[in-house]
């Protein structure tokens, strides 16, 4: 009995050791916003490069920034670009900088679960801000029913759902709200993790979608693909030109048009509330956070190889998952910036 146990132990230990070098394993962590895209990409890339496993864990943009700064993961991912303080903190800690690489364009959509309502609701900027500030509490409030004439909205309490952890999706949403509502800007502000006036907290886009799906009268924000994959109704949002626009490939691409022409060198840009009649106002780039220097050359080359692939073949997978492709000018600029990763 003891001998058998000992033998098993040795076998398992050997197995573990033998497994050790069979594949290069790179770990990344961060945003849940692009997770469906990334999980598809890393899976496809692994099929093409059997010796490379890129393990991506969707723990939220806040987690991505924190862990890549700590050095416990090889790269990060976020939809809320790192601010100057965070960049400085990284520089101070490591002695070199960290670079942002946009990957796709996505959108935060207002998803809801209102009994009896399957139609697309129109939401004004004030309606969304009011609901999230806790000032608008019922579904049949004039601010909501006004733009939705002909729909019978119930007099039920709105259950607001937001993220419980540091999230780039939250950053995009609050960035938009800060631009369209002064009250929001002063009271709450924009960030990955804010002091929410009302609502339930759920972890990750996945859990927010799950909560909305299961909770009648709920209202929350999720990335577009989560609403689509789960057959959840989501509304149109009024943009800066006054048109009610639904998030889709065309409207998200339109939102990025201006930024494409004037992309800053570090790629950190906000495209919420973008000008343009067809632009969807809550769109955003999402970024990979890649350290500027790698001590391990094989890891560096592997990541650079992936980014190159992502900017070329990878872009062909985005539309099936309702993420918009990067504008060509941005792709060209990124390929050049990739040389800065040493």
């Amino acid at each position: 009995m003891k001998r058998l146990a000992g033998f098993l132990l040795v076998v398992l230990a050997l197995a573990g050791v033998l497994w050790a070098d069979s594949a290069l394993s790179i770990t990344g962590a961060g945003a849940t916003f692009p997770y469906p895209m990334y999980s598809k990409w890393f899976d496809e890339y692994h099929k093409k490069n059997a010796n490379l496993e890129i393990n991506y864990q969707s723990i939220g943009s806040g987690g991505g920034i924190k862990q890549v700064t700590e050095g416990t993961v090889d790269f990060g991912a976020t939809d809320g670009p790192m601010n100057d303080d965070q960049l400085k903190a990284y520089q101070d800690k490591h002695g070199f900088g960290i670079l942002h690489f946009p990957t796709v364009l996505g959108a935060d959509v207002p998803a809801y679960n209102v009994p009896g309502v399957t139609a697309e609701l129109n939401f004004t900027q004030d309606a969304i801000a009011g609901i999230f500030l806790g000032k608008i509490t019922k579904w049949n409030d004039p601010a909501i029913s006004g733009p939705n004439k002909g729909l019978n909205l119930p007099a039920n309490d709105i259950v607001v759902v937001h993220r419980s952890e540091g999230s780039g999706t939250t950053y995009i949403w609050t960035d938009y709200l800060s631009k369209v509502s002064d009250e929001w800007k002063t009271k709450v502000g924009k960030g990955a993790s804010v002091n929410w006036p009302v609502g339930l907290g759920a972890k990750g886009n996945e859990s927010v979608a799950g909560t909305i799906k299961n909770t009648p009268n709920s209202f929350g924000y999720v990335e577009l693909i989560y609403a689509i994959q789960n057959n959840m109704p989501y509304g149109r949002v009024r943009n800066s030109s006054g048109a009610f626009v639904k998030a889709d490939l065309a409207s998200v691409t339109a939102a990025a048009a201006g930024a494409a022409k004037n992309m800053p060198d570090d790629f950190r840009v906000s495209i919420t509330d973008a000008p343009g009649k067809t632009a969807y106002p809550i769109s955003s780039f999402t970024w990979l956070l890649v350290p500027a220097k790698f001590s391990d050359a094989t890891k560096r080359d592997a990541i650079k190889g992936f980014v190159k692939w992502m900017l070329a073949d990878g872009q062909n997978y985005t539309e099936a998952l309702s993420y918009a492709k990067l504008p060509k000018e941005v792709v060209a600029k990124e390929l050049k910036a990739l040389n800065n990763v040493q």
Partner: protein
Amino acid sequence: MATTTTTVPSAGPVAGSRSFFSRLREGDEIARMITFLFAASVVLVTVLLVFELWQGSALSRHKFGFHFFRTSVWDPIFEQFGALPFIYGTLVTATVSLLIAVPLGIGAAIFLAELAPARVSDTLEFFIDLLAAVPSVIYGVLGIFIVVPLMRQYIQPALKHSLGFLPLFQGPAYGVGFLTAGIVLAIMVIPYIISVSREVLLSVPRDQREAALSLGATRWESTWKVVVPFARAGIFGSIFLALARALGETMAVTMVIGNTPVISASLFSPGYSIAAVIANEFTEATGDLHTQSLIELGLVLFILTFILNGFARLLIVATSQRGSGTGHV
């Protein structure tokens, strides 16, 4: 044969056998040292843990001091951290769970100790022990898929309808919240109350019961008025044990409590607990102050459970010693 004495080898040198004793002693000495090292490592690891918790929360302790326990704002952007909502949530859910689990648990323990024939009692206890082994995450899954919809569709509206004048049962019926978390916790801690209470009740000497019965008490009166009070300390001990478990529970709570740092009189309100906020925010707390505030919360939880476990142990031991006359720590 070297010796026929049974005294410990260190009893003085005997002419001609010193080398044997020395060898004996050395073999034992080495064994003693090695096993001591292992035992000492337990102490070392525990001390290290407390140290890490203390050190790791230094920043926030110095910055906030006792304000930490009186502020209810948790704002990572403006770097204001107050522990009150989490302490509140932890205590409220634990209280709710005990209110449900204690009557049920003691009732079941009475049944198992006093009424059920030995084989039935042992079989049922076997199942109760298995219940205690179910992992937290599975309770969480059942919480999400069974308890939350039940609460949202039936129980919360019913409570609101009948007892809605109490501030306890007001507000929208989300399904998640303090009450739901309390119910799930109750299911998780019942086995602890039952198994420990059953043991202490069993250890109450028979003559106590028989004396009561011979004085004309009914079965119930003998149990409730004589046996249970006799085992009172141990039963309280089991409650403290259950409380300690409820306070430290993480997964099941975070899946059904709503994850919102809010202090509310209503049990329907979503809330947060110390363990849940650590689980959700630790890996992404940007900024040292945020991380250290979370570690300080961990320290608070640790101290709470430590005190409770200490009391529990004292009470349980006291009762068993009183009952059976043997004592073992």
